[in-house]
């Protein structure tokens, strides 16, 4: 295939070559512009997974790099909704890994201008209000008591934890401004073995 392309490329005229190279470069630039950046602005650490009977309990801390733009957005009453995705993946030596459980939770931080408080709605939809933003953020970053279960067949499993800013919940102009990467906040998948917890 490559040989064929190279032969074709050698045969065509220099002007056509320039046009093809320019066209491909343009496509690459556009594609790169429209691809969401997966820069990891959330770091998941202190992950604790405990098991009680068939019920698993997950706790972890997060470190989020919230720059001044995001802080300003919070103060401008823009609610930030984070999406927490849990996936339990069954491992297999022969076949590709298979997701056997997927659970999505949301938590958010919002500034209430009338009352001048920062309100946190946690993964269990419990509301917490704080006078200071940092306090609210600290509360929001600590995830505790996330319970989940799945049918354990005694195999090796992995728990994939992913936290991202839910861009769809942002105001419309911020959603469609693909060129602004401020709102591309993602932790990437934090993977943990859960097969041998017993």
């Amino acid at each position: 295939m490559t040989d064929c392309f190279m032969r074709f490329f050698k045969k065509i005229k220099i002007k056509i070559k320039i046009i093809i190279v320019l066209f491909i470069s343009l496509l690459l630039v556009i594609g790169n512009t429209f691809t969401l950046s997966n820069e990891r602005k959330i770091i998941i650490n202190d992950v604790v997974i405990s098991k009680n009977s068939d019920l698993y309990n997950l706790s972890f801390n997060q470190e989020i790099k919230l720059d001044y733009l995001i802080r300003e957005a919070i103060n401008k009453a823009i609610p930030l909704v984070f999406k927490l995705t849990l996936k339990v993946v069954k491992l297999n030596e022969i076949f590709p890994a298979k997701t056997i459980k997927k659970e999505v939770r949301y938590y958010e931080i919002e500034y209430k201008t009338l009352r001048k408080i920062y309100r946190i709605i946690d993964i269990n939809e419990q509301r917490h209000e704080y006078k200071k933003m940092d306090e609210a953020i600290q509360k929001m970053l600590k995830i505790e008591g996330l319970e989940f279960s799945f049918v354990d067949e005694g195999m090796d499993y992995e728990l994939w934890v992913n936290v991202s800013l839910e861009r769809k919940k942002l105001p419309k102009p911020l959603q469609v401004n693909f060129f602004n990467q401020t709102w591309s906040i993602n932790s990437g998948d934090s993977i943990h073995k859960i097969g041998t917890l017993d």
Partner: protein
Amino acid sequence: MKYIITIVAFIGIALLILLAKAISNSELISGDSFRILLGLNILFICSLIGLIAVQIFRLLQSVKKEITGSRLTLRLVLSFALMGIIPVLIVYLVSVNFLTKSIESWFDVKVESALEGGLTLGQKTIDILMSDIELKGKSIAYSIGNSDPEQRDSLLTDLRAKFGIQDAVIFDQDSIIIGVSSDKNDLIPPIPNIEDLERGQQGFFGRIEEVKGDQIYLKTFTPIISKSAMSKRLILQLTQPIPPSITNLALSVESVYDEYQQLTYSRNSLKIIYILTLTLVVLLALLSSVAASFVISRKFSAPLAMLADATKQISKGNYKKIITYQGKDEIGILVSSFNSMTLQLGQATRNSEKNRERVEVARTFLETILAHLTTGVIVLDDKKIIQLNNISASLMLINKKVTMKNKPMNEIMATNLLFKPMYDFVESYIDNNKSNKKEASREFKLDKDKQERTIMLQITPLIDNKGKSYVLVIDDISEVTQSQRHSAWGEVARRLAHEIKNPLTPIQLSAERIQHKFKDKLSKEDSNILERSTNTIVNQVNALKIMVNEFAEYARPPKIQKDIIRIDTLIEEVIDLYEIDNIINIKKDNNIPIIYADQNKLRQVIINLLENSQDALKEIKKPKIKIFIKKKVNEVQVVVEDNGSGIPDEIIGRIFEPYVTSKKTGTGLGLAVVYKIIEEHEGRIKIDRIKNSGTRVTIMLKIGKK
């Protein structure tokens, strides 16, 4: 390619519509579909740019190769593109400016201040209400702390009712409800928030609580300080709703303020996305119009290119080129007219070609006639420049078979003194011919090659659309005049013979009778005189008889009796009669053909020629006569040469006329008779001087046929 461009243009329009709908549809804009649509649009724009680049490249290649119609197409494409680009760019720039200004105008300082004022007003109102409840809570807490535990419930109810509080609940430090009072009978106190209770134990703490989003409650926690040191620490929780009128207004202001803040924050993004969309729309429209301009330009230029191509073909002489364009517009009419014109032109050209061929045939025919004419023909213009001449004219004037076209007449005629009189006549005629007088002619006697030639020059004016020209007809009429002279001489000879011959015999007889009768009657001396005189008369009469007979022979009517003869045999027989055959040398070709002629007359010819040669050779030391008999095409040539004294130049031109002779005793009728006999046999005779000395007579006789 035009189908591709049409399809691409349709796709572009569809994408434009989808993009416009997506902008106005919040569901679409928030989803991935908008991103995909945007990507598709950009991809499509890139494809359009590529397509247009290819089209431009091809068009420029066509222009470089000078393909018919490519320059017109390029011009039309540029015109269409400029017609599209310039107004769209203006609209685009104005729209961007307008859009930016419009978005900025949303965020007025006054509006922001007003919203902040409204929000602050709501906050202050709530603060006042909160302070009021704080005071009431502290007052109730103080009263309950100083009262007996047994009176606590009734006091709580009384004070709650007195202060107009909706709910009042007393918790202990373990969150156990100690007392409850409410203006609602069905109050089930909610479990308090541990954080609230903890903060409430440390001092007054109040917060605002939203319920179901449209109702705001003020909730305060006030520690109850009991007078008994041993009693548990209690916390008074008061819950008081803010009046709905205030709540609605405050929430409304908060909502608007929040939206305004969000918009303020995202206005740059808003500008970017609107400008991006507008740019995409403009680009799509522009590029689609440019792409479409190629199709339209080609459609416009195609029939014109066909016309140009057909014109080229016609200029090369191809009148069969028909354009197949079937449009009903003006170009269609033009093409139809062009086709009609081409057909007519083709027909006219074919007719013209036929006419030209006819003219060419006529011209060739005329040239052939002129070339074969023994008469010289020259056409002069009014400046006496030769426009046309035939070969005979060239031979006559310059003795060469070359054309004299475009040469001045004076260069040809005036430089040769021989023709000077002729040129003077022509010049005089042309210079004095301003009144278009009729033709003129004149005879000229010229001594050409030491022979007198009679030239008749006739000049005729011609007037045509090219101007005035003159036709000179130059005719050598020497033979005609000679023939006329021979005829005249023949008539003279016949009359002489008739008038002289008759009295000769009586004269001779009378002389002889006188001699016979008086010879014996006279003295000897007188008799001798008489005898000499009568002899002289008789001799002279005999001489006159011979002369008259020769005249009679010359003047006899042309009556010959032809028969089949062999000329070589005839010549040999005649030579045998002469005793001079030792000086005669005959050379003849083999198989000399027979001729059809009068044997006696030809014998007379040979005899006359031989006698002339014999006379010319009398004083020559080594006399020689050569006779050549040769076979020619359709003719037999007989040449008689001698090395005698020859014929003087002065008379050689008229040697065949009677009484023209170089001999002292000759009658001058021998060669005249020869000429007459040869002429009667439709033959030709020519006499020349041989270079050093001698004469050559050449006779041509036709091969015999009855």
